């Protein structure tokens, strides 16, 4: 390699290393294990006090507002978990009975999940259709 090119290699390397370092520190700060309620229950011991994202369907009629906190249950394949949402953002519009919720937070040894983040998605179209017994077919068949 010519000496002239060396400074570009060094300059680029500095940038790449800096970005890699930032990525690494951002990663350790915000990484979370993404589990369903069932998966979480299968390995409870290894997840206490770890940052978690847990998904499950909102159990109908369990959403209760207590001051600025919101309590509700989510379930996956029959496993139910109680959640207390203490986040500062308002609840998303899609959050309601039967919706699929993803909660960010920690799972306590008392079996309660404390969430600081909450996302929700309406039950998917596919499930709605399956429930209604309707299927679609290719046109003209």
């Amino acid at each position: 390699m010519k000496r002239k090119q060396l400074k570009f290699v060094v300059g680029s390397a500095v940038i790449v290393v800096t970005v890699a370092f930032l990525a690494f520190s951002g990663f350790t700060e915000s990484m979370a294990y993404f589990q369903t309620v069932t998966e979480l229950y299968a390995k409870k011991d290894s997840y206490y006090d770890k940052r978690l994202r847990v998904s499950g369907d909102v159990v109908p009629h369990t959403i209760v507002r207590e001051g600025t906190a919101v309590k509700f249950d989510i379930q996956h394949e029959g496993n139910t978990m109680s959640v207390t949402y203490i986040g500062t953002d308002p609840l998303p519009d899609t959050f309601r009975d039967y919706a699929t919720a993803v909660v960010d937070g920690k799972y306590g040894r008392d079996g309660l999940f404390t969430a600081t983040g909450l996302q929700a998605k309406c039950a998917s179209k596919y499930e709605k259709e399956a429930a209604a017994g309707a299927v679609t077919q290719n046109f003209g068949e």
Partner: protein
Amino acid sequence: MAQVGQFALALSVVVAAYSIVASLLGIRLKSDKLIASGRNAAIGVFACVTMSIVSLTYLFLIDDFSINYIAEHSNRDLPVYFKISAVWGGQEGSLLFWGWLLTVYSALVIFQNWRKHTAMMPYVTAVLMSSGLFFTAMNLFVVNPFNQVVVLQPGGVNALFVPQDGAGLNPLLQYILMVIHPPILYLGFVGFAVPFAFAIAAMASRQLGDTWIRTTRRWTMVAWFFLGTGILLGGKWAYVELGWGGFWGWDPVENASLMPWLIATAYLHSVMVQEKKGMMKVWNMVLIILTYVMCIFGTFLTRSGLVSSVHAFAQSPIGGYFLAFIVVGLSGSLYLLLDRLNYLKSDNQMESLVSRESSFMFNNLILLASCFAVFWGTIFPVISEAAPEWMGGGVKVTVGPPFFNRVNVPIAIFLLFLTGVGPLLAWRKASTNSLKRNFLWPAGIALASGVGLFFLGVDHFYAWLSLVMCIFVSLTIGREFYKGARARSVGSGENFVEAVVNLTLRNTRRYGGYIVHFGFVLLFLGWSGQAFTTDTQSETGIGETITMRQYTLRMDKLAIEEMPNYTTSKATISLFENGEKVGVLYPERRFYTSSGQPTTEVAIWSTLKEDLYVVFAGSAPDGKKAVMQVYLNPLVAWVWIGGIILGLGTLIAMLPNKKSAPRTSPVNRVEERREVEQHTT
């Protein structure tokens, strides 16, 4: 009418396939007739897909709920413009729309370039039609918008069924920005097919000068303009409609549109190095290939259900096909690139770290680093789950906004810095003298303002740095306009404003570029404000007040109103600033009857200084009080203003240069030409 659409769609698949074969065979057999036939077929595909999408739109307008896609995405009461937007509101229709835009671009490109670039055009046609074939075939065989509603009867017999009414369009999408956001975003995504096709055609036909770059410069800018506008409109929609106080959340769907934009931005800059210095030829090929691949990948990401996202379409079977298309496209392009490496040798070498070309190189490097980080962060859940257990895999691991911000905020600020410095550096090597002349004053003033900002209470490091850079870059840009305009007005007698306008029109690429950069300065100003967002939540009854800094909100009325489409809880809030009444806000919480979906209607009091953002978050258990969430978001308005300036700058940069005015004296013209040569970017 459904049969017409269906038939046109089927025909378009056949014709697109024929167009590819005829074009390639025509090149091989040197048959002008076959090549022309391939071209005509491509126009035919445009006609077929147009027919198909027109018939789908018609079916929406006449409420034909025997069509499954329409039954799921529309209902009788839906206003006409939402019925039209529902055409691209779901998986099937949006893919058809994607394919249609591609055929529109293809037809335009063919009309514009057929005579000019005889050697490349058959390849361009073949490449564009390969994408066309993929999308029309997906629509015909996998996600067909013309499928009928069928009910499984007892005894296992399927019967056709026509529902009385449709399920309705998702209320979150019943919003004017959501009508125009997807088409604009798609115009961006699809638009990159054009420079991509020319790049492949240039390699295939061994026409590897910079013709393909010059030919597609405006097309690339069109696509870049639409993609950027689409992303910003998406942010605006999230801000106004989703009610969480922000406009960007690093959701996979947002990332999907950001990634191609980042690479395309790198490409837009690095092509200048190839045009001026004949360098970075391989690099540009790589960038445009990656841009288009990322566009397809983004489309794939939002539709396959691969990563969970709030906005993504439901899980569907199209993922595998998309992945196959990406793999084939990427490996084909890279193979071609490796095969043509000999034709892509650089004419020059980088010499100095402080030069125009090196600033472009660093711009490229960090844009790509940013894209790379976003890419890994987005697909990390998939990777971590698929990785073998001895590597710590098998578990889904996600990363949140802190990861994306940690990487991208410093990158963005460094880019802003380059925005101010890069355009003023000389090619090859900038002299110490020119550095002093160009940057001493702007840097000095920016630093002095920085000290001032610190004492004004800007104590967030990145926000502070970003604001200092904003001042620095504004000064360098302002100085360029001032210098150029003064030189003009001295020579021609024009007044200063005339001189600025003429200056810009005479070298649109350079000055349009400055305006784009200034748009970014304003965007950064808006983003910096995000560091100082505050919010408060309280249960508020009638007559009670919420106070935030100089603002006081007084709850005057809480009412429930019945509307045709929905029921709404509506709060009437008087807004006082420093004790003086300035306005009335009406935050609402709606409940849509047909879909059973509640939505919040945010009330926003927007000024250039800050936005007061009021969300009706819910009702307290006793029903007499409302839970109000109030955000104070400084400087948000500048994000949208910056977006508009950015768009204007892009449009100006696309204009052809105005020829020299006769008033200009010959001496001055020589002077100017030298100036232009020095600075043309």
